[in-house]
């Protein structure tokens, strides 16, 4: 019969069904008493969002400058979300993640860039 009735996957000596140690699988969660980073990240993301909103609603800048500034703000927002909420600094195998992040970047730039390209048409039906 089983020797270990207690099942503790988080313990240092945890093993899988095959008896292999699971310690290497544990992610490196940054543990803090109070999630200040997340709170400031949340505030920061709100600031970035409202900055973009106000810039657009109040027509503060000429169109091209406005577009550049809100795109910059969007990139900052994405970086903040990844860094603060997506635990990107706490994972194992960052090299693998860079491949996927590169892919994400390509897709994101493709979608936004091509949307801008598509929507620049000025004529009627061509």
């Amino acid at each position, binding site marked *: 019969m089983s020797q270990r009735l207690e099942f503790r996957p988080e313990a240092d000596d945890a093993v899988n069904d095959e008896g*292999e140690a699971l310690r290497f699988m544990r992610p490196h969660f940054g543990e803090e008493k109070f999630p200040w980073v997340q709170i400031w990240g949340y505030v920061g993301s709100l600031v970035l969002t409202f900055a973009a909103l106000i810039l657009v609603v109040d027509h503060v800048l000429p169109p091209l400058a406005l577009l550049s500034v809100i795109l910059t703000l969007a990139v900052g927002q994405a970086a903040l979300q990844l860094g603060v909420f997506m635990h990107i600094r706490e994972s194992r195998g960052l090299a693998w993640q860079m491949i996927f992040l590169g892919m994400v970047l390509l897709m994101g730039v493709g979608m936004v860039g091509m949307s801008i390209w598509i929507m620049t048409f000025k004529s009627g039906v061509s």
Partner: protein
Amino acid sequence: MPSFVLYLVRTLFPHDVLRPTELGADVMIVATGVIIVYVLTKQKKWLYLWREWLTTVDHKKIGIMYLIAALAMLFRGGVDALMLRTNLALPNTPVIDALEYNQVFTTHGTIMIFFMAMPFIFALFNVAVPLMIGARDVAFPRLNAMSFWLFAFGALLLNIAFVIGGSPDAGWTAYPPYTGLAFNSGPGENYFFLSLLIAGIGTTMTGINFLVTVLRMRAPGMTLMKMPMFIWSALTTSALIIFAFPPLTVAMAMSLFDRLFGSSFFTLAHGGLAMMYVNLFWLFGHPEVYIVVLPVFGIFSEVVATFSQKALFGYTVMVISIVSIMVLAYGTWVHHFFTMGAGPGVNAFFGLSTMLIAIPTGVKIFNWIFTMWGGRIQMTVAMLYQMAFIPTFVIGGATGILLATVPADYQLHNTYFLIAHFHNVLIGGTLFGLLSGMYYWWPKMFGHKLNERQGKWAFWLFFWGFWITFGPQYLLGLKGMTRRIYTYPAGFGWHTLNVISTVGAFVMGAAFVVLVYSVVYSLQHGEKDLTGDPWNGRTLEWAIPSPAPEYNFARIPVVHERDAWWDMKQKGQTLASMRPEDMRTLELPRNTPIPFLLGFAFFVVGFGMTFEWWYIVALGALGVVATLIYSGFDYDEHKHIAATEVLEIEAGLGRVQG
């Protein structure tokens, strides 16, 4: 007080929902509801329903609930289709008027895509993915249940629209200005946007869940290149969902803002840019068609290998092609609106990128054929759907290439040629694949096979019904018949073809009736699956009993080869010869009412917002926040099944030595 009641009655039951069809539906809904309540009470099943189903986090049960929902929605969407077709066969005496026709085609499209195809796919993901990769559940079981209930309550919100308040009527694409408040003031479009927003949250979470499940939960030894093709399709589909749904959410939310809060993102006045909605919608919409077809490619890859008794031909190339389809799927969305006039440069780019997708898809078609080549083919129902899929999908793909040719598209855009094309790929591809998957995994879900003879009847009716319906529609498109018209003048030469098409639609209706009869019949008389491996399968789900025990695998298997279970059988190994001392205490997710309550709270928000009753919205929002906070601090989310109990269950199944 009476004026308040009058207001309520007028708002909830306007003229729209008091037509004979809606009143008939009301009677049926109430009658069915009464019967269900009566049976549940009589059989004392309420507690069972709550404990075993409504609060479950078991992926197999969630899969079954998705399947039931999808079949119910297939019925609703199918009845809508029959109403549309009946009208078009009788152009001189329309059965339903223009407004109702708009509502019915909107509901038909929305339901078939979002509330039939998507849940059907998630049903098969839930049932098969964890079992195929040798896992005990998905990565986030509670999130999985939340996904289901958000989908279910989102679907409910859309489905009550036609009897309470009025249906949406701007098409499943919901283009502005049709959806703008200036032209469409009823609650219908609010229902549409809110139901899709709520169900969309669930779908996004499902995408995240299955991406993580596939990447992190595979059995030891199952490297990426040893995964079954269905798992590859789950992985790529999840990646598509994660990228495709945000644009949809944004487009729906902005449209809703235009309607509820007086913004003008897509309005014609105040500098709104209606074309931007079209761009955002198809930024989602094109990946969406691959979301509904990639899983089917995965299903067919499993079905064709199993019933040809032969390993899948060209596995590596299959992986490369499915991944390239995933990437290319993001670069083609403009082909849905070439006629917007974005210019020759844009149109040429997207026309070419669309044609490019035909290459990896063609590679897959050839590989399925080569898998059958020299194999010992068994003509089961699942395999019949596969055999029908290949020619049907090839024709659908070829007409797609015609539509991708920009000059031709200017002629064919929005005609019945387009309608025939996308039904060709959605029925011939998605629906045939889903039914194939249902027949294939049914024994694993319920422990018995579906009746093959009745299944073949349903198959042939579906197949011929499909071609009789949509073959003529290609011709109608070439004759200039446009979509979304409820009647047409005599003398255009459209009538005969429309009558033939309608006959085909009713043949498909008959196929659905046979299918449902077969399901009910097989519950009683279906051939029991005692081995757990009724098809002589190749992948790990067939290594365990049918239906799978709650914990799936008493011991997680070790994988050495692709087609792990086939490999084990070749070596004379089995998972059913464990010794008592092999048993371990297993950790499983604990049932929780939180997902159900969260879905309900979202439903309250959605319903309140549809009618702009802000107190109800606040109440629902409070419920959402409360459920999430409670869930965040609920650390008691696991339960354990003692080794002795596992031993007892496994011994009961005859899977223990000595």
